[in-house]
């Protein structure tokens, strides 16, 4: 990727915390996706030493893919299609390669984001130009192709995870999801449990179903769930109207520009006989009304780039794509096939008013290239899936956010940047958006931490990423949500935006063992069979032992007062409800004394921490503290947020707190 290393502070390497490439090159990132395009410059292995001796992976022979396509960067490439073919029939090899070769681009993008090599002069048609690199530039990549034209089938996914664990990956990156189900029925959660138990950090995308609440996927507590935020980079494309007004939008269009003169402008709804003509769906625009004009289309139902193709095929000269309430002011840029600009909802409303009231509306679009330094940034992407966690509300998800909007990374040579069949352009890098893009950022950063701290468990690495994430801008104001234009909450960003340099030296971590997670499953009242499905070993919950989901040593807090019951862990007192959490902090830094501080936006919850100071004299020393939330009665559905921080003056170990009634 370009820009994200700078945006994340990796280029500055303050304090020399970023590990040397030699140690990073021992870390292997497994990416379950659409495979890889082996000719991508992001897989160049120059400067890399021999493949780690423990590696058991392979480059499997398949269509247009042999062992020679692998090298010291791309060290593994497998494909899994038996489940897919069993349901949908044999793979049509004229449309997709029955091999690890990436015919889609998504897998090359995600794997190069996580661990791609340094490529100077990368860009998409000159947009986002710079030196592209993965987060863990020297780490090795193993691609496991599990996603095909018809989707990613769980039987293939489990087979790939099974193999990746046996091959010896250190980090598993999965930018995919499939609904919400209990952990014992969720293949990704089940597979991730064993991976975690073997020391592999599993990073998954949170989903693109935002800004709706309860829209998260991959919420098992042993998974790192990653939402998406913006960078400080934009690709402005201004829409100028005949009435002299200008509106700011974005575009990655590269081709013959529109003439400077104003062109006739029409709303798609008025150029169609279809009831949803405003959406510019295939076959709905009337060429006689569209030809030679710029067309305004509303977002929804079909792919953004497909709408541009529909306008072009109907003879349109350009397109203005207007966000709806679902997207708000979020501006996702696309490499449209015709001159086009995406504008926010407010601009869309204003432009439509002009279109509907002016007797002779005209417009033109001016493309301004790449702009950096956009403020504020990051802001939470509107599409990024949001909490609360629908499976276990007591575990706050997503865990954190990372860059996922307009991300440049490697691309497949067999498909154009829009992914449309009619797009004959071929590019080495593409700019796309999604939590698919934020997930591999965290996967690569986890690989960096793994390289710096080989002995750390996946939970410790996740804790480091979460407790050092930031939820305020340097000005002190809280992170914003582009969906609302207002302040975001931990249900949107979890612990906050990833800050990798701080994560390399977190001071303290909240560690969790596999057995801790099993006790968590006991607290969920899972049956022995359900626990065995997840754990792959016999584990009996102790009938005499008290279990609570609040006992899980998670780096964040989600107190659900409506479920608070009278136990030793939580209880009721008159009209107020009390929830207690005991947490264990492990010192991974120097000796020091940490003091607690609390901030809360609500007067309805009293928070107390005991003790309020923790002294550590040596590494790996563990200390316990108890935090008590005493909440007064609030209407059901009320949410409120707070933050708990431990600091020794050098490190800040922060935890978000979400209260819900």
């Amino acid at each position: 990727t370009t820009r994200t290393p700078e945006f994340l502070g990796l280029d500055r390497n303050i304090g020399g915390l970023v590990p040397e490439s030699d140690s990073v090159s021992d870390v292997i990132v497994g990416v379950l996706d659409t495979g890889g395009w082996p000719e991508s410059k992001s897989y160049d292995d120059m400067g890399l030493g021999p493949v780690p001796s423990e590696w058991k992976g392979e480059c499997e022979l398949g269509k247009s893919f042999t062992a020679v396509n692998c090298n010291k960067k791309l060290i593994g490439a497998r494909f899994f299609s038996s489940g897919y073919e069993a349901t949908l029939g044999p793979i049509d090899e004229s449309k997709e390669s029955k091999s690890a070769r990436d015919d889609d681009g998504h897998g090359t993008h995600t794997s190069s984001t996580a661990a791609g090599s340094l490529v100077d002069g990368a860009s998409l048609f000159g947009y986002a130009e710079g030196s592209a690199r993965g987060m863990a530039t020297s780490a090795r990549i193993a691609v496991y192709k599990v996603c095909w034209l018809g989707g990613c089938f769980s039987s293939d996914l489990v087979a790939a995870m099974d193999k990746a664990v046996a091959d010896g990956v250190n980090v598993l990156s999965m930018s995919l999801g499939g609904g919400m189900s209990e952990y014992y029925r969720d293949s990704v959660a089940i597979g991730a449990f064993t991976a975690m138990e073997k020391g592999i950090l599993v990073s998954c995308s949170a989903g693109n179903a935002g800004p709706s609440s309860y829209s998260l996927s991959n919420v098992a507590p042993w998974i790192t769930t990653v939402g998406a935020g913006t960078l400080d980079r934009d690709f402005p494309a201004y829409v100028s109207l005949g009435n002299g007004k200008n509106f700011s939008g974005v575009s990655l269009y590269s081709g013959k520009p529109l003439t400077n003169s104003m062109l006739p402008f029409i709303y798609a709804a008025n150029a169609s006989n279809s009831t949803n003509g405003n959406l510019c769906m295939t076959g709905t625009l009337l060429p006689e009304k569209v030809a030679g004009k710029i067309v305004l289309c509303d977002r929804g139902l079909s792919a953004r780039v497909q709408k541009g193709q529909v306008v072009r095929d109907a003879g349109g000269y350009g397109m203005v794509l207007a966000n709806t309430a679902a997207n708000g002011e979020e501006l996702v840029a696309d490499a449209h096939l015709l001159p086009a600009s995406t504008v926010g909802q407010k601009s869309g409303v204003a432009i439509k008013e002009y279109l509907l009231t002016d007797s002779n509306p005209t417009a033109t679009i001016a493309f301004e290239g790449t702009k950096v330094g956009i403020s504020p940034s990051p802001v939470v992407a509107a599409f990024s899936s949001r909490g609360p966690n629908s499976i276990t509300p007591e575990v706050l998800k997503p865990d954190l956010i990372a860059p996922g909007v307009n991300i440049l990374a490697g691309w497949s040579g067999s498909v154009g940047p829009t992914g449309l069949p009619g797009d004959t352009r071929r590019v080495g890098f593409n700019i796309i958006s999604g939590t698919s893009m934020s997930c591999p950022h965290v996967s690569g950063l986890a690989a960096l931490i793994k390289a710096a701290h080989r002995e750390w468990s996946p939970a410790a690495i996740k804790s480091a990423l979460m407790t050092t994430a930031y939820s305020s801008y340097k000005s002190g104001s809280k992170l914003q949500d582009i969906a609302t234009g207002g302040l975001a909450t931990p249900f949107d960003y979890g612990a906050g935006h990833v800050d990798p340099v701080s994560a390399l030296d977190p001071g303290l971590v909240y560690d969790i063992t596999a057995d801790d997670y099993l006790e968590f499953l006991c607290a969920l009242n899972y049956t022995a069979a359900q626990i065995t499905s997840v754990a792959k070993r016999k584990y009996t919950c102790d009938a005499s032992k008290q279990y609570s989901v609040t006992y899980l040593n998670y780096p964040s807090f989600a107190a659900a007062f409506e479920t608070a019951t009278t136990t030793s862990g939580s209880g009721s007192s008159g009209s107020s409800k009390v929830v207690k959490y005991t947490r264990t902090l492990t010192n991974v830094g120097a000796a020091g004394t940490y003091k607690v501080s609390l901030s809360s936006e609500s007067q309805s919850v009293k928070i107390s921490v005991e003790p309020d100071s923790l002294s550590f004299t040596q590494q790996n020393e563990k200390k316990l503290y108890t935090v008590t939330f005493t909440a007064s009665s609030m209407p059901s559905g009320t949410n409120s947020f707070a933050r708990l921080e431990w600091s020794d003056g050098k490190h800040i170990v922060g935890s978000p707190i979400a209260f819900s009634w």
Partner: protein
Amino acid sequence: SASEKKTYIVHMAKSEMPESFEEHTHWYDSSLKSVSDSAEMLYTYTNVVHGFSTRLTPEEAESLEGLPGILSVLPEVVYELH
């Protein structure tokens, strides 16, 4: 009928394998054959899942679920890229 068959992931309790089997894969195969003569394994899983995936009719899946050592028989889920 074959057209009614769907893919299932079958989770097995490896610790409950009868002593008469030397290899867990033989046990998996025997369990599968006891509910379907024609069904074949798509994958045998050994690390992140103990079990296998196969194509079964809903009736066969239900029968399999009732056998000793079977933890669950979960229908295939199609995931999508984010």
